[in-house]
């Protein structure tokens, strides 16, 4: 169904791992199992040339199961193609294997994701908070974290 070349190759190589493929406004998103993310990342980089990890972030779908989604926006510098990989992460076990061994740039992105979203990365070389202070409690980008601060009532009305 999908036009994207990489999707076919991914389905062929990791048939058991590809959960979903979505096309929206010309963007292709592939949801894969989180156990295989490093293998899939290495395959995409070495075989299909997605050598630039543009961005890595977490999305909090509070109230849904699994609660989190880790999103990898990839780019192929030679063919100028984009591809988005998503990994579902359960709230009970918010840990994903690090891809900083595949793309060095993931190092800070994963630290940011841990800091703000509370998703931890196994085997990360230096998993510390990056934007908040070391003794900060909680992860501010989670949907159940109040926008006005940790000791305040949950957000009720206008902020501005």
């Amino acid at each position, binding site marked *: 169904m999908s036009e994207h070349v990489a999707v076919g190759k991914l389905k062929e190589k990791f048939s058991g791992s590809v959960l979903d493929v*979505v096309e*929206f*406004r*010309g*963007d292709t*998103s592939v949801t894969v199992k989180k156990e295989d993310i490093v293998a899939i990342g290495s395959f995409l980089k070495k075989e299909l040339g997605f*050598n*630039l*990890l*543009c*961005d890595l*972030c977490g*999305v*909090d779908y509070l109230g849904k199961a699994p609660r989190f989604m880790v*999103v990898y*926006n990839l780019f192929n*510098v030679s063919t*100028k193609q*984009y591809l*988005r990989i998503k990994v579902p992460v359960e709230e009970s076990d918010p840990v994903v294997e690090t891809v900083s061994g595949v*793309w*060095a*740039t993931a*190092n*800070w992105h994963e630290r940011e994701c841990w800091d*703000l979203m509370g998703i931890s990365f196994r085997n990360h070389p230096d998993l510390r*908070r*990056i*934007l*908040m*202070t070391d003794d900060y409690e909680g992860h*501010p*980008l989670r*949907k159940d974290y109040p*926008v006005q601060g940790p000791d305040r009532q949950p*957000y009720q009305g206008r*902020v*501005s």
Partner: protein
Amino acid sequence: MATTEIMTVNMGPQHPSTHGVLRLLLELDGERVVKATPHIGFLHRGVEKLSEHRNYHQVIPLTDRLDYLAPMSNNLGYVLAVEKLLGLTDAIPERAKTIRVIMAELTRLKSHLVWLACHGLDIGAMTVFIYCFRERENIMGFYEKISGARMTSNYFRVGGLSADLPEGLDKEIRAFVEAMPGHIDTYEGLLTGNKIWQKRTQKVGVISAEDAIDIGLTGPALRASGVDWDLRRDNPYSGYENYDFVVPTHEDCDTWARYQVRLVEMRESCKIITQALDRLQPGPILADAPKVCLPPKQKVVNTIEGLIHHFKIVTEGFKPAAGDIYQEVEAPKGVLGYYLVSDGSPKPYRMKIRPPSFVNLQALPQMVEGSLLADVVAVIGTLDIVLGEIDR
């Protein structure tokens, strides 16, 4: 027998060579840097969190406070992302696209001028600093005439622009970009042949093309490592495919190369602006999308549909279909990306910004480790980081 020990030195949190608050923990062996650890986060304002509690239009003024030296580039990236989310990309009128290109390129000039000024000053060239700010002042004047503000422009809208160009401004911009190459010659005359400048920049902060891509470097820093990639040419937006310009690259991979690449980029920006001014035709500046763009005032006061649309957009905003998109633009400092998730409500469910400075700063340790303490200042200058964008 004399023994040596590693000394730890804090550079920052406030240092003249950084635009904002950055603490660098440097471990030194004599004057040589053994290890550099950047500490960031001092300015963190939670822009991504705030945007989840505002509707799409209300996020625009948050974005221009990120990279406050190039506000319109951030606005452009954001409005393009929302337009892509709405499926409105093809409906943007030609005049709006052309004016967007003019403003984006003026912003590139403005940002590069501050970079050259501060980079020069960091290395000890005072005159270039004053000259660059003199030219930048003109662009600030254009900003003021267009948006009413000198720094925090709020001019781009989802679907087009907030207003048309003021009368006669195109002539002023044309005069400015015609004079600009001469000014760039002056800067080059002061720096390029200067022996001190050459010694301080050549073979400093070297990073190979492969390492640069791996660490995520983008923009002029990547092109100075020999990678021929510019989004304006390779994944064009806002009609950039219709302009004739050169994407400069350099093979030296050092601070000198990044200086050369940015200077050529400034000259190319002037050419793009001239071409855009030649193409500028009268026409609408907002897309024909009544549920997204505010109707003209005449329609609001004279027709009930106009009144309803105005009321709905102001009080409630618009509701894009559920889904997620990723949109990138070539900002002056590198690739600026917006990842937007919509759940069908009038507010972004999640907005993730991919700031070029954040990723570029990550390359700093591997660029300075092994070089001298004084080179750290030169490398920070050449990366052209803005901490407002790094911390968000």
